[in-house]
C-alpha cells in the first residue's frame, strides 16, 4: 500500500508541474535567439573603446591595458595628436588598437588598468566568427561612434541587439577612480556608452563631502 501512495504522489508531482508549465508559471527556458535573457550588470562581454560626450576619444595610447593583460591579447600603438584637430584630449591617442578575442579571457584587468576609462566591457557576447582574422577586433570594430553606438561585427545580424549596445556597461561606474568633489558637475567619463545624461549615484554627495573633509583635515 505504501508503494501505491508513493505512486500517486509521484503522479501528482508531474501532473502539477505540467499544469504549472502549461499556464506558463514554471517555464525556465528562454528561447535564446528569439528572446534575450537580461545579463547581470557587471557582465564581462566584449570590449568597447569609449568617447567623451563631445566626441573626443578617451584612449590616449598609453598601453597600460596591454601591459595589464594576462593573456597578452591587446596590442596598442600610440600616436601624437595633430594639434589642430586632436583625436583625444591628451598628447597622444590610440592609433592602432587590436584585441585578439580568441586569446582574451574576459578578466577585465584592462578596464581596471585604463587611466581614462577608455576601454570598458559591454554585455555583448555573440562573437563567433568563421575565420581567425575576424576574431581580431581592430580599432574600427571596438571604437564607438560619436552617437555612442558600439559597432558590431555583423550589424545586420538578428543577434545584434542595438538596445543592449546603447546601455552596455554599468560596473565601471562603481569602480571608477574619478568623481571627486572638485569635478562636481563636470562629466569626466561615462560608464554607459551613448549620450552622457545619467544621474549622479545616490550617495555621490555624501562621498564627495567626505572626500573634501579628508582633504581639509
Amino acid at each position: 500500500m505504501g508503494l501505491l501512495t508513493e505512486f500517486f504522489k509521484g503522479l501528482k508531482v508531474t501532473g502539477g508541474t505540467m499544469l504549472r508549465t502549461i499556464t506558463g508559471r514554471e517555464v525556465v527556458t528562454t528561447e535564446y535567439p528569439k528572446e534575450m535573457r537580461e545579463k547581470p550588470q557587471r557582465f564581462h562581454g566584449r570590449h568597447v573603446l569609449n568617447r567623451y560626450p563631445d566626441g573626443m576619444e578617451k584612449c590616449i595610447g598609453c598601453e597600460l591595458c596591454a601591459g595589464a593583460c594576462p593573456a597578452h591579447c591587446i596590442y596598442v600603438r600610440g600616436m601624437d595628436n595633430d594639434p589642430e584637430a586632436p583625436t583625444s584630449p591628451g598628447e597622444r591617442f590610440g592609433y592602432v588598437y587590436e584585441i585578439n578575442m580568441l586569446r582574451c579571457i574576459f578578466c577585465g584587468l584592462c578596464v581596471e588598468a585604463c587611466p581614462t576609462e577608455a576601454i570598458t566591457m559591454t554585455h555583448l557576447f555573440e562573437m563567433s566568427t568563421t575565420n581567425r582574422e575576424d576574431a581580431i577586433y581592430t580599432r574600427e570594430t571596438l571604437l564607438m561612434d560619436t552617437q555612442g553606438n558600439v559597432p558590431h561585427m555583423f550589424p545586420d545580424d538578428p543577434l545584434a541587439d542595438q538596445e543592449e549596445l546603447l546601455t552596455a556597461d554599468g560596473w565601471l561606474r562603481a569602480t571608477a577612480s574619478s568623481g571627486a568633489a572638485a569635478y562636481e558637475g563636470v562629466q569626466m567619463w561615462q560608464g554607459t556608452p551613448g549620450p552622457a545624461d545619467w544621474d549622479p549615484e545616490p550617495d555621490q554627495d555624501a562621498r564627495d563631502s567626505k572626500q573634501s573633509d579628508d582633504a581639509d583635515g
Partner: protein
Amino acid sequence: MTWEEIAIVVLRVVMTFVLLLLVTVINVWAERKIVADMQSRIGPNRAGPWGILQTVADGLKLFFKESVTPRKVELGMYLLAPFLAVIPAFLIFMMVPWGAPFTIGEYEVALQGADLHIGLLFILAMSSMAVYAVVLAGWSSGSKYPLIGGVRATAQAISYEAAMGLAMVAVVLWTASLGSENALSLASIVEAQQGTWGGIIPRWNIFPQVAAFVVFLIAIVAETNRAPFDLVEAEQEIVGGFHTEYSGMRFAMFFLAEYVNIFSMSAIAATLFLGGWNGPTFGPPIVAAVLPTIWFLIKTYVIVFLFFWIRATLPRLRYDQLMSLGWKRLIPAALVWLIVSTVAIGFRQFGAPWS
C-alpha cells in the same frame, strides 16, 4: 464477392491504416510535448505551429540518413527484424473497431480493419510476434548490448503476456455471460457494452472488471516496452538496447512500431474496458456518425496520456523487481480475479450449487 464488397474491404483497411499513421504522428509529438511540460521545459516548437510537424521532420531526417550495417550482423534476420516489428503493430490495430458502422447504399461499412471472430486471440498472437522482432534484432546485431536487450525482452514479454491474457479472459467470460455469441470478437465486445445501468452509469466492463482493468493496464505498459518497464532499451544501461545497431529508416521502423503499439494497445484497453466507441450520440446525422469515433479517440487518448504521464513519473524497474512484479503480483492477481469473476458469473447464471 462483388467489386463493391472488395472496394469496401479496401476502404476499411485504408481508413484504419491512415488513422493509425495520423495518430502516431501526433502521438510522437504529443509525448515529447507532454513530457516536456512535466519537466518544466518547452519541448519541440520549431516545426509548424506548436512544433506539431516535429514527427514529420524527424521522419524525413531518418529517411535520408544512411542505414549503417555493421560487419558482424546476421544479415537476413537483421534486415527482417524491423519489418517484424512494424507489421504486427499495424495488424493489431486492424482488429479494433474505431467507430459506429455506417451504410453506403445497401452495404454496411464497419469502421474496423477486419472483424475476426477470434480477434482477441489474433491480438495476443500478434503481440507475441512483435517480441520476435525485438529478440531477433538483438541477437542478429552481433553486439553485446543489443543481445542483453533482446534477452530481457523475451523474459519480460513472456511474463507480462500471461497477465495480459488472463485479464482478457476475464473480460471475454463476462461478455459471454451477457449473452454475446462471439465474445472473442472486439466488435461484439463493444456491442455488449452498449446501454447504461439505471440510465447513469454506462455498461462498461471497467465497472464489473476493475481488477482486470488494472492488471491489463500494467501489462500493456510492459508489453509495449515503455517506461517504467523499458529495460529492453534502457539507454543508461545498455545504450539503446535491441536497436543500438540500427540507424536510418530501419531504426525509424522500430520507433514507428513502438508508437503504433502504444496507440493500438490503448485502443484495445479502451475497447475492452471503456466501452469502445459507445457513447451518447446527438445532433444531425453527420455529427451523430462521427461522434462514436470521437468518443473512441477520447477514451484511447486518456490511456495514451496515462502512458506518457507514467513515463514522466516513474523510474525504471530493476530486472528482479520487474520479474517479481510480473510473476508474484500480477499473474496471481489476474488468476484470483479470473476465479472470483468466474464464480460470480456462475452464481448469476446457474444459481448457487446448493440450492
